[in-house]
């Protein structure tokens, strides 16, 4: 019920000119969306963020999980360092990293200048490509901890005896990693990937607090566009149509995953 009603409502809304006359207008919004360069730009940005940050967070999260899985005497400092980024609101991560990337007083420019990587301060958030990269980096930082927590739990489920047997057979560390760790971790990786992909498609908080979608519309995501039309412009009909497209994209991605997992399972 909770799932079906909103979708029905969205589809219904999308056929009406709600903000002005309230009249039934058929597929006019759909044609508009299709021809709207803002929509394609936001969709492109959303898909790019997903394609960059999901594998990025998986690799960073796997690295963190492997490091955190080493035998420490006191486990809490490491555990807390994975929990803190997870519990930090996305909007705060956006604000904190916007400060990191600040042109004049940001720590990123400072470190890069000290090591001699750059000569002058770079205006990271004022240049489209750099702003996009900065946002992706922030998303990866924020989400890799969650990945690491899920993967760490998976790592701890792998029986030690498997590694001991491999050791006896003379398998190298590298071989053990690819032939035991990764296959045994697959269920956790898939769960983490699915949830991360779904949330990546909804990216809103971090670009909103870091750049407000700018410079220009270079970091505007689909979620930001829906928010802009629905709340800022009160154009609920058009906002709904955008949301229908967003739902279809999410559905396609979820379907893709389920299809492939179904294949793997059988």
């Amino acid at each position: 019920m909770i799932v079906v009603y909103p979708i029905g409502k969205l589809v219904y809304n999308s056929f009406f000119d709600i903000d002005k006359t309230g009249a039934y207008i058929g597929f006019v919004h759909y044609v508009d969306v299709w021809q709207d360069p803002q929509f394609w730009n936001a969709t492109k940005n959303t898909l790019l963020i997903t394609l960059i940050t999901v594998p990025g967070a998986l690799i960073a999260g796997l690295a963190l999980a492997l490091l955190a899985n080493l035998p420490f005497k006191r486990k809490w400092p490491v555990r807390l360092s994975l929990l803190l980024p997870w519990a930090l609101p996305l909007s705060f991560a956006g604000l904190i990293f916007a400060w990191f990337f600040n042109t004049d007083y940001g720590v990123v420019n400072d470190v890069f200048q000290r090591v001699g990587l750059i000569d002058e301060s770079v205006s990271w958030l004022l240049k489209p490509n750099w702003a996009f990269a900065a946002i992706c980096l922030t998303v990866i930082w924020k989400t890799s901890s969650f990945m690491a927590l899920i993967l760490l739990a998976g790592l701890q489920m792998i029986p030690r005896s498997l590694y001991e047997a491999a050791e006896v057979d003379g398998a190298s560390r590298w071989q053990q990693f690819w032939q035991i760790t990764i296959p045994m971790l697959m269920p956790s990786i898939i769960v983490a990937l699915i949830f991360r992909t779904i949330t990546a498609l909804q990216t809103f908080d971090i670009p909103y607090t870091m750049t407000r979608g700018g410079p220009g519309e270079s970091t505007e995501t689909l979620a930001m566009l829906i928010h802009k039309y629905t709340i800022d412009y009160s154009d609920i009909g058009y906002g709904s149509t955008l949301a229908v497209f967003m739902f279809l994209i999410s559905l396609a991605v979820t379907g893709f995953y389920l299809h492939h997992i179904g294949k793997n399972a059988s």
Partner: protein
Amino acid sequence: MSKAIPVVWSSAALRWVAAGIVVFNGFFPAVWILFTSLKTETELVQKPITWWPEAATLENYVKAFHDQPLLHYLKNSVIVATGATVLSLLVSAFAAYAIARLNLKHRQLILTCIVASSMFPLVTLLVPIFETMRALSWLNTYAALILPYVVLNLPVCTLVLVSFFQSIPRDLENAAMIDGCTRMGALWRVVVPLAAPGVFTAGILAFVNAWDEFLLALSLNSSPAVRTLPVGISLYQGEFTFPWPIISAALIVAIVPIALLIAAFQERVVGGLTQGGLKG
């Protein structure tokens, strides 16, 4: 023998390096914000930038509370997150009990549906929720946030509670019912207390989710009277001004409660996260 020594050395050193990397990755942003919040405005505009605050001051904290009603935002966040947590637990306890105990025919299907509903894109819910709240004249009330947060939390809380409820022997409830408890009585007097760790875990997850939520809070509750922390802090920046030391101080004020909460109950949180397998 010659091989053993470097291996021992490297494994101890490796552990320290590993811990260093993980801790740095997790804590550096918060620590840097803490440093920034303690710097004076003159120190902040120095070039090259200083790392350690040279003359630590609390004036940014005073300004953070003075420039915006930060304390009020804090109160709003506590009310909304607590309300959402209590209601989420109440509703999900019934759902989880039904799934764990009653002999439902399609239990696996129901669980799958619960997981699937947690994958529903929140942004697409924004439009219908906004319309509904506007129709009910609930915009800019606590309920406008609490209700959607409960809905968002249900899948997570239910999954965590189901696994806890299933671990409690049925005989205990049967004994309680023989002793004259109703099924409801057995649920509240026997099952819930025994599942307290699970209830607690689900509660923390629900609280963190509600504390962190931004999109709905921004869209539904724009009036300062009901504004929550994430939205309030994002508004310290003016059109062209970014009072970073003040924003940093406000961030620290908002991060401390949630950081203390997860520090106190970290094992439970990790357990819940992996059982519920949920959002990042």
